[in-house]
């Protein structure tokens, strides 16, 4: 074996250096241990004891949500919660037996109590919501029960559950130890930070099994702020009653002067009281599995082919670009032929020679096929975007559906193919890939009537939004307005919308499938519900200075003039009464 004296000396010397480092590092450890265990021991002993102090949250009162006419649509209700302190098994069973004499506990309650007992929280909630009868019975024997108390809690309560569900939204208990309610949808979610308030807390000392020894300190909670929204509760209720005969429908009313949403109804809706408080599994399943999706707000959360409503946009674009003059006439023979395929007008017999006003009045498809061809898809997209299609309307709802505004670029990115001329044509009558929410359609009319491209809807009452003016050419607006007035005097909506204050409006029946030749002219009522056309009506009134936009949508309602326009008329009448 190799041995070398010099090498041995070198290693010996260096080993001394390393052992020196080891001693130094040990001294560092020893010094720090001294600092922790002797120097600042008092601090850590205190902290160690603090580990026995629990913070119990005191929930704040959540702010109320009120309508413009002062009705509370989301408030708080006092509930009695029965809680018991942790104690040993024998005492616990004695207490429970006594309690059973005056309150009813089902299997679900028993299961929950057993679980909470295992968790060793300092309190066990026996029952969340005591009835008045239970409470009064209980007060008689409360003195015999040790460690049992009744607590007052604020439970979220919606006094007008029907028709307000989508606007007001619902809450749910947040996870974690703080069971602070959090707004999940609607106004509850939008203004959650203002409504929530700040939780206070109760510092209690607990022993090793988590039983309360005494209260050390408490901090009061700060209540949340109330919110006033722009909805008119009476109008909302009225519209809800009108629409609730339908399977699925929606309506929205906007105030043109300030963009405030006066009413917003979506059918079917849900009872926020059920969703926000204790809900059983079967209740939740029935809501989630409903084929009509009651949780979806059909005004902002769902987009449809707008159909003939979109003709307003095409007409406006053509006038603004001076592609046509109001007097130019186009011949409608009942269809337009393109590459061996005939695109039919809804009126197979044709409208004959027709100008812009009549084309809107009678909702002639051929006229708009030709105008769309002349405009080209790029110009249509440009104006549609300016009037709010394919973008967010600016309403406060989170996750607003923005619909779909098809363009050459979109087609290429989505399908990898080029844009076809026929697609421009069917986009011109609001069909094809085009999708829009009801609110987008209403906002479009709001923009035209207010003469401002920046018109935007809002849910808050009196929110002075300093909207910059982006003026729209007044001449074009007048022509469009006049045509829309004619729609309600002698056009597609004449049957239901002829009034003395004057409504400007447009009906729309958008197809949800390709029509077979055998079904031409068939009564929509004979078709299965899922295959019927969507019915739309958007309009504003009064004629001289439009103040309110009303948009009505009936899902698979058949024709716009039959299903949607009469409802809109009733809404207008109700608004004008005031």
């Amino acid at each position, binding site marked *: 074996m190799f041995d070398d004296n010099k090498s041995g000396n070198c290693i010996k010397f260096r080993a001394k250096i390393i052992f020196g480092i080891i001693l130094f590092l040990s001294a560092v450890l020893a010094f720090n*241990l*001294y600092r922790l*265990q002797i120097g600042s*021991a008092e601090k850590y002993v205190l902290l*160690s004891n603090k580990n026995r102090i629990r913070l119990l949250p005191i929930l704040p009162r959540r702010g109320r949500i009120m309508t413009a006419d002062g009705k509370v649509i989301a408030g708080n209700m006092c509930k009695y919660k029965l809680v018991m302190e942790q104690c040993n098994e024998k005492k616990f069973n004695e207490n429970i037996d006594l309690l059973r004499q005056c309150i009813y506990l089902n299997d679900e309650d028993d299961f929950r109590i057993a679980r909470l007992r295992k968790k060793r929280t300092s309190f066990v909630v026996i029952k969340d919501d005591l009835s008045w009868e239970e409470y009064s019975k209980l007060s008689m024997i409360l003195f015999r029960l040790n460690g049992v108390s009744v607590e007052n809690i604020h439970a979220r309560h919606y006094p007008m559950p029907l028709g307000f569900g989508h606007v007001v939204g619902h809450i749910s208990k947040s996870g974690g130890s703080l069971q602070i309610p959090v707004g999940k949808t609607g106004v509850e979610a939008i203004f959650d930070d203002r409504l929530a308030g700040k939780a206070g807390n109760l510092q209690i000392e607990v022993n090793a099994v988590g039983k309360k020894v005494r209260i050390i300190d408490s901090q009061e909670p700060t209540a949340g702020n109330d919110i006033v929204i722009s909805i008119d509760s009476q109008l909302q209720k009225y519209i809800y009653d009108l629409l609730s005969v339908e399977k699925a429908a929606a309506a929205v009313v906007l105030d043109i002067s300030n963009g405030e949403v006066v009413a917003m109804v979506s059918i079917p809706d849900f009872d926020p009281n059920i969703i926000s408080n204790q809900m059983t599994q079967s209740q939740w399943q029935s809501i989630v599995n409903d084929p009509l999706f009651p949780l979806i707000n059909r005004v902002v959360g769902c987009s449809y082919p707008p159909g003939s409503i979109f003709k307003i946009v095409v007409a406006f674009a053509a006038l603004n670009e001076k592609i046509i003059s109001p007097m130019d006439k186009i011949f409608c023979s009942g269809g337009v032929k393109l590459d061996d395929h005939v695109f039919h007008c809804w009126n197979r017999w044709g409208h004959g020679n027709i100008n812009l006003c009549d084309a809107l009045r009678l909702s002639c498809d051929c006229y708009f096929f030709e105008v769309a061809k002349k405009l080209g898809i790029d110009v249509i997209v440009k104006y549609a975007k300016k009037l709010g299609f394919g973008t967010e309307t600016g309403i406060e709802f989170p996750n607003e559906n923005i619909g779909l505004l098809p363009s050459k670029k979109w087609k290429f990115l989505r399908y990898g193919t080029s844009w076809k001329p026929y697609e421009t044509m069917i986009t011109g009558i609001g069909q094809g890939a085009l999708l829009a929410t009801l609110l987008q359609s209403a906002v479009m009319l709001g923009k035209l009537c207010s003469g401002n491209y920046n018109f935007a809807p809002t849910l808050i009452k009196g929110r002075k939004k300093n909207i910059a003016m982006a003026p729209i050419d007044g001449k074009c607006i007048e022509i469009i307005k006049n045509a829309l007035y004619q729609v309600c005097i002698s056009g597609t909506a004449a049957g239901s919308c002829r009034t003395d204050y004057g409504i400007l409006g447009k009906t729309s029946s958008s197809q949800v499938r390709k029509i077979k030749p055998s079904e031409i002219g068939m009564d929509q009522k004979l078709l299965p519900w899922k295959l019927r056309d969507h019915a739309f009506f958007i309009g504003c009134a009064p004629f001289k200075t439009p103040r309110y936009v009303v948009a009505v949508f009936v899902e698979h309602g058949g024709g716009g003039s039959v299903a949607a326009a009469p409802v809109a008329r009733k809404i207008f009448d109700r608004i004008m009464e005031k």
Partner: protein
Amino acid sequence: MKRSFPNESKILLALLFFLLLISILGQYSASGGLWEGQALRHIMRIFLGIALAAYIFFTDFRFWNNYAYLLYAFVLVSLAIANLAGITKLGAQRWIDLYFFAFQPSEFMKLTIIFALARYYSMLSFIETMEFKSHIFPIFFVLLPALLIFKQPDLGTAALIICTGAGIIFLAGFPPKIFAAIIGSCLLLCPLGWFFLHDYQRNRILTFVDPDRDSLGAGYHILQSKIAVGSGRLWGRGFLQGTQSKLNFLPEKNTDFIFTTIAEEFGFAGSLTVLFLFILICYYFFWVASIFRNKFTKLLCYGLGMLLFSHVFVNIAMAIGLLPVVGIPLPFLSYGGSSMITFMISCGLLMSSLKQKKSGIV
């Protein structure tokens, strides 16, 4: 047999006896004063370790010299396999499943790297060790497994292997100026290393710098551990009286944070005793190393001593918040088979070398 048992070994046995006694008490207390489960399994592992140490005690010491490279190569390949196809436990690929026993190649790499380095340097003359170029191989010996372990990811073990390896290379005569230059530049390049870390590793370092940053999340371990150690005061809360560990405020109290339980229950006196016992064992390793003239045995003993101390330092420093939380066990005290076996083997090797020096084999 009695005659061949070296007198010097008795010191080590006495030190080990005290340490193992403390370890059993610590495990018993950390398991909540119960023998069932971890405390009992810990005792079984001690006996398994003693059996292994005894086996190594009777093995011909020349075996380690002859098979040093082969062992190293075998563990290195196992490491690569563990990286590719190992069991993922607690989010890191460290284990190979042998059907009857899941083992951690990185744990055995700690030993075999020492064998390989000692073997390499035992073949060099003093003149050769003064040249930089003869140290290039050893550097790769160290960096290769360290990189594999770092990738698992196990930052702590990789760092320990680099420290121990660097220690041996330094001892063997690495040019001191270059050594200082490398350490200096490593310190300067440290900030760059940040970009190679996993998110959870960055988090640990951030919470180490500022434990209040996330006092319920990642900073929780550090804070609770410090509270436990600090509240021990001079004599501790007494055996089985620690509230931190009893009320489950401490995480990993049986494994990486076992020192915390001991410090809480036996106070400053207890933690100093443990630290002192470890320093004595280290000193013993160094002393044994110094009496050998044979370079392989000498470097091996120094290496084992440095390995032991680096574990002790990192683990205790972690428990009292001086270093970020890295999963390094406390030798002999932490609950865990692989670590117990590693250090029992170290002791077996040491006693075996002493015995065979007497009989003139080494």
